[in-house]
């Protein structure tokens, strides 16, 4: 099993993702430079947070043209796992691997704080170690996390259980007050139709240790590890 953490110029959560995979999940992991196009040998890729290309033009808009992105599309098409966090989610939307877009937060400011998200679908490679309805405390840190999509897309996401996480209050209620950025339908994370590509705005890699205030993010990485094991078993 091997994980890869993609590094664009301006990625700044790459070391954090690497740390969690190597230290808390205990799996081999490499950094993957954005000019690399050979992804053979990897089973799961993390597209980390940060400000790829300085967020110039639009968050994630330039990264989609990076050489590694074409390879990532093929990688995803082959059924392997791609996990985008924060800027990674923005890049996956910009490159068309996930539907919708992430706009400026409704409050117009960058927001960094611990928030709650509810697990909406536990039957995915990223959530198998979690329970449906479980509430996780995980930090967000973004200025453009306001998920938008058209009605058709929303219906499709809902009908196919592709909304994986929703912002909620501590009791699991996806209320307006618990929505930190104005996201449509409190969406915090979605997956593609095949279920092997996940994008989410909250940072699970920042919630893997009690020392940092929460370890609720670990089960997402553990789920992914199990999914890779199952795939290897086939």
């Amino acid at each position, binding site marked *: 099993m091997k994980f890869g953490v993609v590094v664009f110029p301006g990625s700044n959560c790459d070391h954090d993702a690497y740390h969690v995979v190597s230290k808390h999940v205990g799996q081999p992991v490499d950094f993957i430079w954005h000019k690399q196009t050979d992804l053979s040998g990897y089973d799961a890729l993390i597209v980390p947070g940060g*400000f790829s290309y300085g967020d110039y033009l639009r968050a994630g808009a330039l990264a989609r043209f990076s050489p590694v992105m074409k390879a990532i599309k093929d990688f995803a098409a082959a059924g392997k796992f791609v996990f985008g966090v924060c800027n990674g989610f923005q890049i996956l939307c910009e490159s068309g691997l996930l539907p919708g877009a992430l706009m400026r937060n409704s409050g117009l400011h960058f927001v960094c704080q611990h928030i709650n998200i509810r697990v909406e679908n536990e039957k995915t490679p990223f959530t198998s170690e979690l329970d449906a309805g479980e509430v996780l405390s995980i930090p967000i840190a973004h200025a453009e996390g306001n998920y938008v999509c058209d009605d058709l897309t929303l219906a499709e996401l809902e009908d196919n259980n592709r909304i994986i996480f929703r912002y909620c209050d501590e009791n699991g209620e996806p209320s307006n007050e618990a929505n930190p950025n104005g996201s449509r339908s409190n969406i915090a994370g979605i997956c593609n139709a095949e279920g092997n590509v996940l994008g989410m705005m909250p940072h699970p890699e920042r919630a893997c240790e009690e020392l940092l205030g929460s370890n609720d993010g670990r089960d997402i990485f553990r789920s992914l590890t199990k999914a890779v094991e199952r795939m290897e078993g086939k």
Partner: protein
Amino acid sequence: MNNFAITPEVIATHNLTFEEYEKILKILGREPNLTELGVFSVMWSEHCSYKSSRVHLGRLPTTGKRVIVPPGENAGVVDIGDDWCVAFKVESHNHPSFIEPFQGAATGVGGILRDVFTMGARPIAAMNSLRFGHLTEDKHANRNKSILKGCVEGIAHYGNCFGVPTIGGEVVFDEAYNLNPLVNAFALGIVRKDQIFFGKASGIGNPVLYVGAKTGRDGIHGATMASAEFDEEALEKRPTVQVGDPFLEKLLLEACLEAMRSGAIAGIQDMGAAGLTSSSVEMAARAGTGLEINLTLVPQRETGMTAYEMLLSESQERMLIVAHRGREREIVEIFNKWDLDAVVVGKVVEGNRLKIFHNGNLEADLPVDKLTDEAPRYERRKAKGERRKLKTKNRKPKTEDQNEALKMLLASPNICSKRWVYRQYDTMVRTNTAILPGADAAVVRIKETRRAVAMCLDGNARFVAVNPKIGAKLNVAESARNVVCVGAKPIAITNCLNFASPERPEVMYSFSEVIDGIKEACEAFQTPVVSGNVSFYNETDGRGILPTPVIGMVGLIEDTHKIITHGFKSEGDIIALLGITNDDLSVSEYAQTILEFSTDELIETGEVPEINLDLEKKIQDACLNLADECLLKSAHDCSDGGLAVAIAESCFSSLNRKATGAEIELKNERLSTESLLFSESPSRIVISFKAEDLERVSAIALENNCPFEVIGKVGGEDLKIKLNEAEIVSASTAELENAWKNSLENQLGVEN
């Protein structure tokens, strides 16, 4: 060489005095040309030469067993054990932040980050000390709001994108900072002891590389701007404010660290104030070498730039590197990988001359040592300012209901929650932040060890204005206490000394007294000064700021399991006070908020609290012993707003912790009710611990000769305080917390 006439007007616009110009003539034995005059003017500016402060700074203690790099380099470096060190520094960016708050504050962050990674250290934490005029009930309120918003957004913009967590600092409001905000930026990085880099141009024949962003015309004469007071025309200086690009800085960081690991770098220095000039002069001066630089080779983003402009440009995100001869190719390749320019622009030569060539002409030929060592040094006149000794008017308090007074204090600008500010900062990137902003000190763990580093930035200008020496001691004592409250042993400080014009004797008097106060306190706590910065000329329209030293204290926690937070944890825990409360209300938040004294009145009528550094040390030692034995459930510094505010803050909710109440019973015949609740006596810490540990805790306090008094217990939903059996405070914690939490948003007129 160019032959532009050097007239008295030209000399004056370069902020050089006639005597200074005479000195230049003597050094050169001829008239300088305009380019050379420009170089002298920035190197001899207050900002670069420390000409008014140098004679005093020498008194500060700068050595200690942990000090690896004392002041003089880009940042100080301190040993934290297991071959790891931290590099840190604080620096002001006051003038640019007033002229253009967003870019001014942003580039302040950028500059301090470069200072840290120039040493080979990866920045892992940033903090800011911010001072503004009031946001309400002031004729400058709207202006102050926009400065605050701009500065906060600028800091967020730069730090968040760069990927360093901004984990603390302070935000202070006082009318003294109307039209003269203070923005002091701090950064701390981690470096292995054997991988520290220096800004030295060593090795004759070694190539000099220019790396990073291209040079433009921005920021020309920034250093001289920062060395003059402001007037109504200040905004016309906007073109001298630099524009920052945190993305480029992030690339520069990664490329520099990679190039350092390659072993091809002999010396490296960031181009900060006075850009290419100061970086090349300082590198050569430290190594005792000469330099030849060809400006024609410098990457430029504007056409037709003159040598003068290129030398004085303060374009951001640039570095000067001296490579080991023959290895420059490796450095160029690493920078190209990160899509950055890296060009050989000169070489290290024997002798002491800095020779600047442009388009085949020798544009400047100057002796390096004279630019630095022989920069003017002034023993400026100092004289104690006359205090207008106003009689204390007997003021009627705004309210005599202590519940009401407590609530007003909690909502007052300097005590209320600064969540609106720090929520805009990425406080967690790099996954090391063990204590989030809003505590006594911020804490980052060091992944490579079991340890953690605590840090805080503190100023207390009102105390300093009343008595500069005692004020400075109080300031250092509080910053040490703040890191002690999270379980850290204070190990070293950096300081940023913000003052008005040094040409005024009363300013120089307080500056000199502050140095003596810092010296005495740092010696008592064994916390040497390893880096720092002086910012003079903080005045607008003839009105100076309060003398405002800001102390950046760094402490060490041996084991991350022993980190202490300030919130009360469990019902039934005992609350106790380490230290003694005295009648110290005359310069306090109570006097300002409830008795409605203006800052000038406070300073003219008030007295600073006494500080006994011996006692302070005992209290801190007791707290650290308790932390080390894992006996503390919480510890909180008792300062602004006094005991009642400290207890209320410990009751408030925090991550994973609901709000709680407390029942306090005070016995005292000596002090007034107001003093007991709100006096700002130093050397006090509010702690809580398990009831069963009482005996052990009091024994440890006794062993340390630390005054110790059990004052109550944790529990319920209300904060109740009794004095000699009579109830003086009884308020719902939730209500107090709301007043505290939402106040800043209310003052700003924004949604919660």
